[in-house]
């Protein structure tokens, strides 16, 4: 390649220069660095996997909320273990998340003010989850709610649905 330019410089005969211009040292360095790079990426990947638990002992995301008759019409019931409100209105049932969409505090139903209020940063919501005021960026999500074969309410917290989808009774 560029050997001709250096012809004035007396150089030690170098066998590797004859071919593609890569010396044995460069070749071994690149191979070693490449192998170390691949091993490094692999360790990052397996470390990431190691730190992501496969089994979690957390509350179930799908739960039975009991017989519909437990909930009177025009009521908002807080289920503390599930952190969900079961709301029954004349048009039907819906399950509203009790976790504030701002920073994850648990909201409280204030029956006298007819609002869901967050104690942390003052967000307020209507019973259907729409925001009235405060820093919360989104309304409280509605979870999928259905009836089991034996007539109990079933809520799936992994499935968010549109607020218009009400379980008719």
């Amino acid at each position, binding site marked *: 390649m560029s050997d001709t330019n250096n012809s004035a410089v007396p150089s030690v005969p170098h066998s590797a220069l004859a071919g593609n211009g890569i010396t044995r040292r460069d070749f071994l360095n690149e191979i070693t660095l490449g192998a170390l790079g691949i091993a490094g990426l692999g360790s990052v990947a397996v470390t990431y996997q190691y*730190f*992501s*638990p496969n089994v*979690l002992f*957390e509350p179930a995301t799908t739960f039975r909320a009991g017989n519909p008759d437990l909930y009177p019409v025009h009521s908002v019931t807080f289920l503390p273990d599930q952190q969900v409100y079961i709301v029954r209105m004349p048009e039907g049932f819906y399950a509203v998340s009790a976790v504030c969409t701002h*920073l*994850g*505090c648990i909201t409280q139903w204030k029956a006298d003010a007819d609002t869901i209020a967050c104690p942390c940063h003052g967000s307020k919501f209507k019973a259907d989850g729409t925001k009235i005021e405060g820093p919360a960026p989104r309304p409280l999500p509605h979870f999928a709610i259905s009836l089991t074969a034996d007539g109990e309410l079933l809520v799936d917290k992994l499935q968010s649905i549109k607020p218009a989808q009400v379980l008719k009774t």
Partner: protein
Amino acid sequence: MATSFRSALQNLRETKVWKSIFRSGPANTNRTRSLAVFGNLFLHWLPVKVREKSLRVRASYYLGSISFLLFIVLFVTGILLMFYYHPAAPQAYRDMKDLQFVVSNGVFLRNLHRLAAHLMVFAVFWHMFHVFYRGGYKPPHEFNWVVGVVLLLVTLFLSYTGYLLPWDQLAFWAVTVGTNIISAMPVVGSKIRFLVLGGNIVGENALLRFYVLHVVILPLVAFLLIGIHFWRVQKDGGLTVKHRDEDGKE
């Protein structure tokens, strides 16, 4: 009495054991004084001579030294607290209460750890402001300024991870809120939150992860960076001191 003590000390210095540890001999000349500093692991990064000006209170208010002293207090009290603390739910809360009401002098150690932590955040911030307003970040101190900023962040992370360990309501909600701030990061936010908590909620895994970060990883990082920070103060030419102008104004 004093003379006999002095002669006993002199005899001790003549022993083979003493001479094997302190090889430079009595520090009675500038050369042997320098050798005594160079030959000691704990002193070797200190300057053998300092300007009197840089020892004045107003030169630094000793804020860096105060931060380091508080770090040592936290290190010692933290290790002592670990003897009674299980990083598991709900045992962690009971252990914290035991330290307050059952363990002899436990409340003293716990409060010392807490207060020193609060003071350290305060001292490190004050140190940062003092260095900033003195222009201590200017060449040749840029690198050490960056190390200092990282140390400030490590201090805050230590404070935050320690906050969860009592496992009370304050801790739980502070970490719920804090880790939800993480998940506001675009694209990777909720993944990072999952990794930090070891789950989707602040539970046992989160407590254990914060504990390991608080007692092993972050203190190691802090010690390493403090070492670099102190060493660089010396290598960058000592403390930044104001030089008087020719008309005597500072």
